[in-house]
C-alpha cells in the first residue's frame, strides 16, 4: 500500500513530469495563459494519461513481451495512444456531450503530447505491473495539472506587472517556469 501511494506522490510531486522531467513543455507554456483553459487541459491530461498508461501496460505485457519485440514499444505506443484518444473522443461526444464540451479542443491536442508517451515508456522501463502503471499515470497527470495551474496563476499576475521590455512575453514565462522547477526540486528531499 505504501509503495502504491509512493508511486502517486512521486509521479505528482517528486518526479513532476513537467518541472523535473521536462516533458510536455509545449502545452505547459502554450496553454497556461488563462486559469480556466489550463485547468481544462489539466483534467483532459489526467483523463488521457490514466487511460493511455492502462492500455499501454496491457499492450506491453500481452502483445510485445510474448513476441519478444519490446524494442518496438515507442512506435506501438504512439499508434495506440493516438487511436485511443480518437476513440475516447468519439465515445464522449456521443455519450457525454457535457464532458466533451468542457474538455473541448484539448482532447485531440493531447494525442501528440510527449508527456503521454513519456509516462507510458517510463512505466514499462520501471517494470510496473498493470495497477502500478495506472496509478503512476494518474499521479504524473495530476503533477502536470498542478504545474500548469500554478504557472497559469503566476502568469495571470505577471500580465498586470510593469516588466522591463526585454523580459515581456516568453522570457518571463520561462524564468517563472524555471523558478518553479527549482522550487519543485525541494520535493526530492521527501522521505518515506
Amino acid at each position, binding site marked *: 500500500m505504501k509503495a502504491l501511494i509512493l508511486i502517486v506522490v512521486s509521479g505528482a510531486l517528486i518526479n513532476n513530469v513537467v518541472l523535473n522531467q521536462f516533458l510536455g513543455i509545449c502545452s505547459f507554456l502554450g496553454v497556461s495563459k488563462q486559469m480556466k483553459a489550463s485547468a481544462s487541459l489539466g483534467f483532459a491530461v489526467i483523463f488521457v494519461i490514466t487511460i493511455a498508461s492502462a492500455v499501454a501496460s496491457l*499492450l506491453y505485457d500481452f*502483445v*510485445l513481451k510474448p*513476441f*519478444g*519485440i519490446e524494442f*518496438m514499444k515507442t*512506435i*506501438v505506443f504512439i*499508434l*495506440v495512444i493516438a*487511436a485511443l484518444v*480518437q*476513440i475516447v473522443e*468519439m*465515445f464522449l*461526444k*456521443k*455519450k457525454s456531450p457535457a464532458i466533451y464540451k468542457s474538455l473541448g479542443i484539448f482532447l485531440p491536442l493531447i494525442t501528440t503530447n510527449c508527456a503521454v508517451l513519456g509516462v507510458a515508456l517510463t512505466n514499462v522501463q520501471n517494470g510496473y505491473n498493470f495497477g502500478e502503471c495506472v496509478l503512476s499515470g494518474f499521479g504524473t497527470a495530476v503533477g502536470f495539472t498542478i504545474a500548469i495551474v500554478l504557472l497559469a496563476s503566476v502568469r495571470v499576475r505577471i500580465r498586470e506587472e510593469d516588466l522591463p521590455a526585454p523580459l515581456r512575453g516568453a522570457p518571463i514565462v520561462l524564468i517563472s517556469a524555471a523558478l518553479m522547477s527549482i522550487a519543485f526540486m525541494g520535493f526530492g528531499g521527501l522521505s518515506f
Partner: protein
Amino acid sequence: MSTVIVTTVVITLVGVIVGLALVYTGKKFRVEIDPRESAVRENLPGNNCGACGFAGCDAMAAAIAKGEAPANGCPVGGQAAADRIAVVMGVDPQAQEKKVAFVRCKGTCEVTHDQANYIGVKDCRSAVLNGLNVTECEYGCLGFGSCVAVCPRNAIRIRSGVAVVDRDRCVGCGLCVKACPRGLIDLMAADHHVAVQCSNKDKGPVVKKLCTAGCIGCMLCTRQCEYDAVHVENSLARIDYSKCTQCGKCAEKCPVKVIIPPAAPAGGKEA
C-alpha cells in the same frame, strides 16, 4: 530475420486492429449533426473573429442551424454570405431586415465643449470610469472611439468629436452598441433615416447652454406627427420606428434640427 518478420506482422496487425476499432467506433458513436449546420459552416468565412457574438464560425453555424442566430448574422461575410446561408436555411434573404448602427448624438466640437481635459487612456469606457463628465453634456458622445475599436468593418469614424456610422459599411452586428458606455448607439432598419440625433434628457434651457444641437424637448415634433410616432419623454424626443412613415414633418418643424430628415442619410456625413 525471423525477428523482422514477427515485428512486421505484429505491428501491422496492431495497426489493422486499431484502424478497425476506429472505423467501428466512428460508425457506432456517430453523432447526428444537422446537415444544414455543415452547409452553413461552409458559407461562413472561417475567420473565427467572433464579431457575430459567438465563439467562432462553428458555434455561429450551429446557432444559425438551430435558428438562434439570424442568417445574416455574420458581419464579415456580408450580404453575399447571408444570401447563401438564407438559401441553405430556406428563408427569404430579403426577409432578413438589414440593420445599421446609429449614434444618437450630434454634439460636435462646434456646438458643444469638453469641460475636462481627459488625458488618460484614449478609450470611452476608461474615460467614464473617473466619475467626471469629460464632455459638458453628460449624455453625449465622448469621441474616444471605443465603438471604432470594436467595429469589425471599420464603419465608424470620429468626426469632430462625434462617432459617425458609415451606413454602407455597417452590417448591424451590434458590437458598438455594447461598447458605448453612454448607450448612445442604436440599431435601426437600414432603410430608415428619420431619427433623433440626441440623447440628452436635461430640460430645454439646460440643453441650450450645453449644446446648440441638442433636443430641447419642445414637443413641436409630437404635435406635427400624424402617426403618433414621436413622443417626448424626459425632455427628449424618441421616434417609434414601427409607427414612423418617414414623412419628415417632425424634422421640418424641429427648431434645433436634431431630427434627421428622410432625404439625408442618417448619421449624416456633414455631422
